[in-house]
């Protein structure tokens, strides 16, 4: 571990080096162990204040960040769009400057506009952690996916990873693609052509529209949630047709290698992108992802928040 962390913000995986990503994953190892102690709390960020600012609704990411911060002994404030003055017409910048005037040290931001975390990071002394911005990036989700693959398979380089589903609208897919490629995995995107723009091939991934050809070779299948709230009719073939063409059904799961990992960022649409028996089956590491998410977020908060301003 010769790398040193020098960033105050975590905005995306695109700008990180492979060494920096590995450094976060190694730091997360230490924090994962904290979760097994009798007292699951360390004083690393005692006296620091973290603001969870979620302009877009989210339960699991917000609670994961909140628990991570509490386990590091930071103080936490939760703000949602409806409870903030954004609904009264205050600009994002003014809201954030007010938070800084309260001496917030770390701002965890979920926003519907791509680039909002970058915008604030450039203007605030506080650390800004991107918890998902538009269809741009969701770095901590990708980091916990990488952590889970590394934990289960030992390494990431050389593995074939299939990312399935709603790629076009998915910040999870983007962050995963950047991270997986940097760490040397082969990435195949699978889904309806309307949801996988051709430009993705320029990133260095393969694109397939035939799931049955991809599954037998995959070491990891990462399923993305079909985002009903983002769907417009013209993109989407209809639920029944989607299940028939791309759903990870019980029958399709028989094509998988015995040691293939099935991942899903949640929340799962049981019976749509994945059958219940598969989600609860032996291949599934979906709940490991949740546990690892906590360790990875503790690592990110410790590294970004622990740096002296």
């Amino acid at each position, binding site marked *: *571990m010769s790398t*040193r*962390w020098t960033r105050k913000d975590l905005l995306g995986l695109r700008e990180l080096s492979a060494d920096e990503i590995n450094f976060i994953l190694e*730091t997360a*190892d*230490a*924090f*994962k*162990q*904290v979760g097994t*102690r*009798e*007292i*699951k*709390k*360390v*004083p*690393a*960020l005692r006296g*620091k204040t973290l603001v969870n600012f979620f302009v877009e609704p989210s339960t699991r990411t917000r609670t994961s960040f909140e628990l991570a911060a509490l386990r*590091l002994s930071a103080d936490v404030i939760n703000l949602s769009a409806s409870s903030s003055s954004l609904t009264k017409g205050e600009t994002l910048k003014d809201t954030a400057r007010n938070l800084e005037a309260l001496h917030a040290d770390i701002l965890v931001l979920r926003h519907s506009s791509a680039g909002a975390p970058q915008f604030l990071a450039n203007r605030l002394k506080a650390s800004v952690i991107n918890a998902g911005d538009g269809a741009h990036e969701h770095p901590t989700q990708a980091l916990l996916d990488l952590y889970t693959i590394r934990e289960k398979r030992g390494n990431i380089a050389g593995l074939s990873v299939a990312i399935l589903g709603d790629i076009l609208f998915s910040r999870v897919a983007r962050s995963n693609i950047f991270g997986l490629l940097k760490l040397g995995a082969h990435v195949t995107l699978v889904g309806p052509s309307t949801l996988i723009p051709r430009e993705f091939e320029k990133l260095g991934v393969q694109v397939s529209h035939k799931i049955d050809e991809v599954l037998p070779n995959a070491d990891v299948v990462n399923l993305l949630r079909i985002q009903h709230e983002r769907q417009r009719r013209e993109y989407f073939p209809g639920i029944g047709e989607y299940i028939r063409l791309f759903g990870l059904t019980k029958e399709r799961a028989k094509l998988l290698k015995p040691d293939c990992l099935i991942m899903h960022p949640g929340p799962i649409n049981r019976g749509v992108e994945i059958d219940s028996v598969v989600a609860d089956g032996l291949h599934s590491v979906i709940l490991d992802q949740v546990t690892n998410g906590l360790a990875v977020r503790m*690592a990110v908060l*410790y*590294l970004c*928040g*622990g*740096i*002296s*301003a």
Partner: protein
Amino acid sequence: MKQARQKTSGAAVLTMDAAAIDRALRRIAHEIVERNPQLTHVVLAGIPSRGVEIAQRIASFIHEIENVDVETGVIDVAMHRDDVGTRSELPIVRESRLPLPLEKRTVIVVDDVLYTGRTVRAAMDAISSFGRPARIQLAVLIDRGHRELPIRPDYVGKNLPTSGSEKVQVQLQETDHEPDEVRLEKQ
């Protein structure tokens, strides 16, 4: 606070060579055996990275003396320090490993150099988050003085009077890939 260990340009005095380090750790092993009749309850918990290696060596000396395998562990203090955010470089956190439960055990914290005592305080905090050991003891290769907290070692390899401007440089084969050596460097 632990010393930075980069080489300095000032004069260096060889304080302990490999044989002296070996003798000191062997003596500490004897003292631990003497003071802890129930060796099976003892855990040698090293502070990364040299403390971990020193704990291993003491454990193997105890094995030679008494033919008992004393348990060893790793206690990382980085996330228990009280100076996060005040130093330009963030300490690297490592995984801690201790045999559980700690109740009824004697945890001996092992480190290379004892200086201000703040690392040891952090180690004691870290240990208490794993449980409540019967007692905690402290073994160090070098005690260089200048305590800032009321902490006293139970086992000392060598007392080394120093001034605040000097650096104690411990080098071990396993962690530094250089021959065992302790040097006192003036700045």
